[in-house]
């Protein structure tokens, strides 16, 4: 487990891609977990999400870094959140099994804060997602689609409102899973960035536990994963691959604007 300092969007995505590559190459059986922040406001879009000129322009004007995640799904605004990344073998775990396995750590961590989180039951397909840009390029999600604007199976809710959105990438028997827990209300800001202008119905940690800091949340999540995964989890010493090695294996193809 690595509790990382805040980094740029490009560095964070490169590290996470590297975590997956390193786990696959080393055929590593123990999970790697990284909990981290962001050096500045960053919009991450899904692996196959359409990015159009309008989105790039809005991000540039707002001083928001735009990066592409190796994982799927749709856009997440980072900076006032805490993000996790897990790289682990999936063996016989189907996609939803893997989400539930990771959720055990998150739920245990949120319990430490006094919150009862639940995994949303799968609601089936989120509807037709195929999208085309005017230039004809296609994607799984339109450019204006935000992760927190909809709740699908495997998301975490508190009091019926989404508090953690997650996404996954699978490669050669291992998976990388990302997730974000907002600490502040960023709904209007992402609505502006995506051009939807709308506020979704998600919640954020500061609304439920006013004054909680990212460091405190990190601390509780570490304890949660230790409780949920037991001996799997050690802090950086002796378990995690050196960050320099992970970074070396990372992908540089993450910066979009």
């Amino acid at each position, binding site marked *: 487990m690595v509790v990382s300092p805040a980094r740029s969007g490009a560095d964070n995505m490169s590290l996470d891609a590297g975590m997956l590559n390193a786990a696959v190459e080393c055929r590593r059986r123990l999970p790697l977990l990284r909990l981290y922040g962001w050096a500045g406001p960053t919009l991450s879009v899904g692996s*196959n999400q359409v990015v159009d000129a309008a989105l790039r322009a809005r991000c540039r004007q707002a001083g928001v870094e735009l990066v592409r995640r190796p994982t799927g799904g749709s856009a997440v605004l980072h900076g006032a959140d805490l993000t996790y990344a897990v790289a682990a073998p999936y063996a016989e775990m189907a996609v939803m099994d893997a989400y539930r396995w990771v959720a055990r750590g998150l739920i245990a961590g949120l319990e430490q804060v006094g919150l009862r989180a639940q995994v949303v039951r799968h609601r089936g*397909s989120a509807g037709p*997602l195929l999208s085309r840009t005017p230039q004809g390029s296609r994607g799984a999600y339109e450019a204006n689609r935000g992760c927190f604007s909809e709740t699908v199976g495997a998301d975490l809710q508190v009091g019926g409102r989404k508090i953690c959105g997650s996404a996954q990438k*699978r490669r050669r*028997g291992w998976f990388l899973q990302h997730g974000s827990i907002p600490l502040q209300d960023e709904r209007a800001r992402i609505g502006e960035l995506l051009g939807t202008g709308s506020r979704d119905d998600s919640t954020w940690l500061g609304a439920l536990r006013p004054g909680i800091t990212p460091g405190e949340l990190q601390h509780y999540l570490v304890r949660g994963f230790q409780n949920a995964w037991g001996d799997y989890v050690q802090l950086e010493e002796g378990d995690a691959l050196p960050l320099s090695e992970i970074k070396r294996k990372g992908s540089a193809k993450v910066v979009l604007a």
Partner: protein
Amino acid sequence: MSNVPQDLRYTREHEWARLEDDGRVTVGVTHFAQEQLGDVVFIDLPEVDDVVEGGEPMGEVESTKSVSDVYSPIGGKVAEVNAECSENPVAINQDPYGEGWLLAIEPSDRTEFDGLLTPEEYEEFLQEEAGE
């Protein structure tokens, strides 16, 4: 129990391959793979005439909660891409060995096909995976 047709060959990354009469090899993802992924919403594949390498990633399949690499079982040139499946990717869930085929490859080396897993070997591999 997973559905493993006896007339196909397989990879450890859960693709299937069928040698057609004209020498082309049709490729898709297995029933087991689509079950693991859930509802497929998007596929990203190479284009006709692109060259693919055996055992290397050639595209991605995105389901509602995951993205998975798709590997080319053999090396060669892409001869045909299933455009209907690109428009309606849930065909991969509904009929992975039929309407959900992904593409056809003109193999550069036909013997590569013989090196793929037989149905028995793939079934054994699935059992090993489940037992780990």
